[in-house]
């Protein structure tokens, strides 16, 4: 296909596993410069592996003793008392909160983010395109602690009536039953704030990818009589899909691990609070529970329990990423 279009890369884009775009080994001349440069690149890769291994080993090393002493089932227990000779702690609640908060964030941020990226690259008048991109990038310039403060003090009170309305009209759905948590500090609200934080990440990367759509593809579609939207659907989106997924994964990583904004905004629940499926409830994510208690990690056992929670977050992100990888791979296989 590439021979026809001249600049097509979609089909030859190297796989995420780094299979090179073309067998450029022959181009490596074996000269000193080449060997040095290649070595440096490889070294950087190895360094990344070493770093992650180090972090992982450290987490495990700190977590295992605490896990070994845990009297409750780490994966299914809702308890969290990490002191004393018989600590009992589990992560179910943390997992639920983390996953729902991130899911809400992604549900909002990905469609809006992609639409904004399309707007910037395909719809915006020429004079607007650049400023629009800069404006959205500006959202990324806002530090998360500012999102937290703004969410708590400014956005939260405004959101309160919305939540009251949701609770009132949709209260019969378990997801929207009231849980007695004040508006502006619920899982739903934090999800929305996180969506705003993630949006510029999704937009920035998708935008770059959309902008690279081969002009021939686009013009081809238009020449065949496609409307602009059809052109986007048939040329831009398929081309940009791996990029969108990549961007979403970056965003998701941020949402899952976001600490300070969640800590500031989200109300926590006392030990032994009733379990609900409600999005209008409070809770703690992995990161916010660690942050809430980081100051008081006075024993290795206690620290270990929290680090074990951090480890789960680690694994969670990894699983999501792995799934995304598989999706990209499958898609590529079909598009051949």
């Amino acid at each position: 296909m590439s021979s026809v279009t001249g600049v097509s890369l979609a089909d030859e884009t190297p796989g995420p596993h780094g299979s090179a775009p073309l067998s450029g080994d022959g181009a490596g001349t074996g000269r000193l410069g080449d060997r040095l440069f290649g070595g440096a690149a490889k070294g950087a890769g190895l360094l990344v592996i070493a770093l992650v291994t180090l972090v992982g080993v450290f987490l495990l090393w700190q977590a295992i003793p605490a896990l070994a002493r845990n009297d409750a089932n780490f994966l299914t227990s809702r308890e969290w008392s990490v002191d004393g000779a018989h600590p009992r702690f589990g992560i179910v609640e943390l997992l639920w909160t983390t996953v729902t908060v991130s899911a809400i964030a992604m549900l909002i941020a990905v469609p809006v983010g992609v639409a904004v990226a399309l707007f910037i690259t395909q719809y915006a008048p020429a004079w607007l395109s650049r400023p629009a991109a800069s404006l959205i990038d500006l959202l990324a310039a806002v530090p998360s602690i500012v999102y937290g403060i703004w969410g708590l003090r400014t956005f939260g009170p405004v959101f309160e009536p919305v939540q009251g309305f949701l609770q009132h009209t949709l209260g019969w759905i378990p997801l929207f039953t009231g849980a007695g948590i004040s508006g502006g500090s619920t899982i739903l609200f934090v999800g929305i704030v996180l969506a705003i934080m993630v949006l510029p990440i999704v937009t920035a990367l998708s935008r770059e990818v959309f902008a690279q759509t081969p002009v021939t593809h686009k013009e081809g579609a238009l020449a065949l009589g496609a409307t602009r939207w059809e052109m986007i659907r048939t040329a831009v989106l398929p081309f940009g899909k791996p990029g969108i997924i990549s961007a979403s994964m970056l965003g998701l990583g941020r949402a899952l691990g976001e600490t300070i904004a969640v800590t500031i905004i989200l109300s926590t629940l006392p030990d032994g609070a009733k379990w609900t499926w409600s999005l209008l409830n409070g809770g703690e994510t992995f990161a916010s529970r660690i942050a809430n208690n980081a100051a008081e990690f006075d024993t290795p056992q206690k620290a270990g329990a929290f680090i074990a929670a951090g480890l789960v977050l680690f694994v969670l992100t990894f699983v999501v990423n792995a799934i995304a990888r598989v999706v990209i791979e499958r898609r590529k296989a079909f598009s051949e």
Partner: protein
Amino acid sequence: MTTSTTASPGPSAGSAGASASGTSRAGATSAATTGAAATPPSTRGTAPTELGHKARGRAVKDQLARVVMWAAFLLALVPLVWILWTVGSKGYHLLLDAQWWTNSQRGITSRREGGGAVHAIQGTLIQGLTTAAISVPIGILTAIYLVEYGRGRLAKAVSFMVDILTGVPSIVAGLFVYALWVTTFGLQRVGFAVCLALVLLMIPVVVRSTEEMLKLVPNELREASYALGVPKWKTIMKVVLPTAFSGIVTGVLLGLARVMGETAPLLILGPYTKSIATDLFGGLMPTLPTMINQDRTEVLQPAVDRMWASALTLILIVLLLNVAGRVVARFGSVKR
């Protein structure tokens, strides 16, 4: 490229309202693409044919998509404007005071007005730039390795590790460096330790965005360069990187924006001080996020003012970096 008309019927106008602008276009399209051109002109005024229906549906869809894209963009602007307005209106007046840019907070309590943020600004710049100086080379080299060199197991492993690194919550990165720096090596908490934690957070952002951009560099460029006998490393340095330059800069700036505003690891590693401190390897180093964090737990007006003002300062600094980066990207990128 087709010039876009900005007239967009609102969704409320529905099909009836759209007919004015819609039919002419639908007619044109159907005439151009199908044999329907043969149909007598009388049908245009009266009930449309089946084909006309379809064409009108397509046109409506197209308009609808245009409206959705605009709406998404405007929607994304809402929180942006809101946050900037909140922070700006509450924080600007301190920034107008020359003292803000020349003095530290030394000796200022939450009850007293006055003092500046110069200590925190310096700390943020020094730490941000140091972090970038470490992570940008590693990140870009890793991305080059993944796209240009890597194959087989090692590349898979590197790619995998970068994914995991994306998932390291900032607070866990802080805990990790604390355990390494303080617990294992017995060193004092200093600014450089913060930088190490931030490097962990910045590398994956740089790698992922650079990788996406490198993948989009057309292979024909590489081939052409190789064909001219240019060694691989020179091809990468002189052809591939410059082509992807603007995208890489965007990615680096996103990463830098993130680490400069990062608070969680600083809570563990970088305690705040109210006095000027510029030594990365000795003593505590104040930064804007920790300054915000210190003041946000206060309710007294002087402290609250300072909190918004330092938030605004932080946003402005990141913004300035973004503008600078954009200028660099524009001058540095290859004309296409």
